[in-house]
């Protein structure tokens, strides 16, 4: 019995860590490897618009889930394109600060849980076209990770923005809490906390050793390969480094390349060609909410002008109602408004009340 103890221990561990993940996306691991899979692409960010909190949020993926259940694909490709400020290079100073994402960890966690549990029987792959900021935590929630040749896995150090407090002991509390929460996403992808901590905390070091294809990440400099020996900078990965280390499974600049790396020589891309997959749903959502947001900015400028003239209170009220309606339809509009110091939904209600009582101020911002 004793010699079976390690086996029993392994089996017990398997039993007690039973969070099932999707089946492998590799062709050779499919029940019927000869079948050409029907693929379904789900973008997280699209065509340069990938702001966490607005373009990428739980609500849009609830719609995607419904569609996947109808279309019944054989393989799901998550296509991540999210860079803070559109360039992801805050240090250059030419990024668009209004396009920096701000993560709601609960919303993101529910999004990942939804996609994982609803698609538990469908092979999935995460294909990163680019990721700078909180989106990198999302990318690492999937174990089967591919990148384009110019893709980055950068920016998880933004978690440190949550770690601000005058008391050093509270700082340590927040640090442990927020990095723990963010590392939960990496755990979902099967990555170890050492990797996440090095990507979030500058003082953490990172090295890696290999046991065949298995990576053994270390939070020190004693591994075979030193990834991050600096106590001033976090670990960030470009595609080549990620591939060399084994963090990503391969580099593919197109879906065709990706499918080739997965082992497929033919596949059914009718959903994509017919504009019938997640690209349509996510693309339409991003287009629609951004249109509504732009219109709401215009409406708010109009309101500020109307509010100066008591005779135009009716017109002022109408512009506010339009913004309110946009926010109700697209919470992302409110999200952006709040980020930019403009009124929230509650603030709009207050302004409407003030208008009714003849007390509206031209500026409703904070």
């Amino acid at each position, binding site marked *: 019995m*004793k010699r079976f*103890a*390690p086996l029993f*221990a392994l089996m*017990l*561990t398997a*039993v*007690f*860590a*039973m*969070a*099932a993940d999707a089946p492998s996306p590799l062709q050779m691991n499919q029940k019927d490897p000869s079948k050409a899979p029907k693929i379904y692409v789900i973008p997280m960010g699209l065509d340069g618009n990938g702001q966490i909190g607005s373009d990428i949020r739980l609500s849009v993926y609830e719609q995607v889930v419904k569609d996947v259940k109808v279309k019944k694909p054989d393989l799901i490709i998550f296509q991540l394109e999210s860079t803070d400020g559109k360039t992801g290079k805050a240090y250059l100073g030419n990024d668009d600060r209004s396009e920096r994402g701000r993560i709601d*960890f*609960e919303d993101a*966690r529910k999004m*990942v*849980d939804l996609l*994982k*549990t609803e698609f538990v029987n469908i092979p999935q792959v995460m294909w990163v076209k680019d990721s700078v900021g909180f989106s990198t935590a999302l990318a690492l*929630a999937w174990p089967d990770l591919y990148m384009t040749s110019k893709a980055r896995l950068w920016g998880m150090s933004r978690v440190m923005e949550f770690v601000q*407090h*005058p*008391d050093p*002991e*509270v700082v*340590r*509390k*927040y*640090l*442990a*809490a927020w*990095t*723990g*929460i963010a*590392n*939960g*996403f990496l*755990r*979902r992808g099967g990555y*170890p*906390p050492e990797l996440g901590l090095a990507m979030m905390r500058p003082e953490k070091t990172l090295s890696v050793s290999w046991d065949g294809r298995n990576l053994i990440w270390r939070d020190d400099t004693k591994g075979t390969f030193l990834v991050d020996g600096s106590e001033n900078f976090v670990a960030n990965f470009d595609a080549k480094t990620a591939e060399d280390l084994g963090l990503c499974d391969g580099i593919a600049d197109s879906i065709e390349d990706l499918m080739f790396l997965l082992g497929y020589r033919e596949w059914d891309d009718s959903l994509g060609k017919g504009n019938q997959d997640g690209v349509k749903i996510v693309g339409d959502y991003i287009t629609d909410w951004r249109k509504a947001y732009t219109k709401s900015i215009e409406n708010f400028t109009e309101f500020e002008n109307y509010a100066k003239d008591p005779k135009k209170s009716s017109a002022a009220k109408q512009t506010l109602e339009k913004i309110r309606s946009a926010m109700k339809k697209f919470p992302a509009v409110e999200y952006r408004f709040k980020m930019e110091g403009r009124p929230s939904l*509650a603030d709009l*209600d*207050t302004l409407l*009340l*003030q208008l*009714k*009582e*003849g*007390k509206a101020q031209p500026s409703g911002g904070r």
Partner: protein
Amino acid sequence: MKYISTTLFALAVVSSIAVAQTKPASSPSTDPKKAPAIPVAKPADASSSAAKSDATKLGAGEKDTRRQVFILPLGGMVGVGLRHNEMDKIEKEADKFGPGQIIVIRINSGGGLVTEGDEIAETLTRMRDKHRVVAWIEEAISGAAFTAMHCREIYFLKTGSLGSITMFAGDKSAEGKALEAWIARVAEVSEGAGRNAQVGRCMVYSPLVVSYTKDAKSGKVTFFDNDTGEHMLSDDKDNLTFTEDVALDCGFSQGTADTEEELFKIMQLKPNSFVVNQQGKKIGDAWEKTVADTSKARVRILAEWQIKGSGQGPAAQIAVRIKLLDEMLRIWEKCEPVAMGYEGGGILIPEEAQQYEDLFAGFQKAKVKAPIVKQAFDRLKKQYQKELAEMRKSN
């Protein structure tokens, strides 16, 4: 609008520290082996909703002997969304079926009030000796971690995190005697549920250290309050927060599951031996909705208090305010934590009503505050009605 919230909040924190110092060690069992043995459930009470739904599948005269599993989702701030009150309710539901039912508290919270922690401690300590009480962790930081650690079994979702129980108020973390008391308290809770005390301590205070060694053959874990163990859990610079893998490896958690089906499997619940009773979700969801609805209403009421009717003159505004006082009282009655303003925005008592200091003398200690608030609001309404009458007379 000036509120008395800051003072009340500070008093709440101070009083909780006092309780931590003087409260005797939790009376019932601190022996983890005293968890109820897996029993045969008492036949279901016909009046319970789960029994009703199952009774349709059972033959006439047949009794459901399966154990009831209650999944109670609790989220939000400790003291607002995550409270002992909902746990008390589920305990009553479980008691209907006799001892040995299964209560899964699914926790998603970033922490909150220490005072609520005292109440939760009392409830869970009592419950776990009657039923199998399990914490299922989505996110459990600070006070939520303190809550979870009262359960003898903890399971994580894969994305789950638990820890960081540093106590602080405003800009300052607990220091001196208060800190010592809190460290001791969390250690006691940790040990009382069968876990290592030093693990609890390291969640509170970063200079404390804990490491562990795991025997490769037996899997037995030995903890050390220094760095001599094979695996460092928490060094002298960091507060301790678990992710699911580390929690599982060191035995802090009993497993990881992302769905109820997975959870039931790793809890080793035999198929057909249990039934999921929907009361848990009903209670959790109902409270979540109450918090959300009253929070929204609160924002509207506060805005209307300042603005509504003001354009039509003082009489109109007073008339509006009389109605708003009734709405405010309803929030006090339905959802006291939202009325207290624990999540910000101040206490839901207008400045004009805060003048009745004689009524608020016992406010902080009152278990249910709505009756005191009602008295204050009734007085203010009377005053407003008098003012209205005088205005009408002079017009």
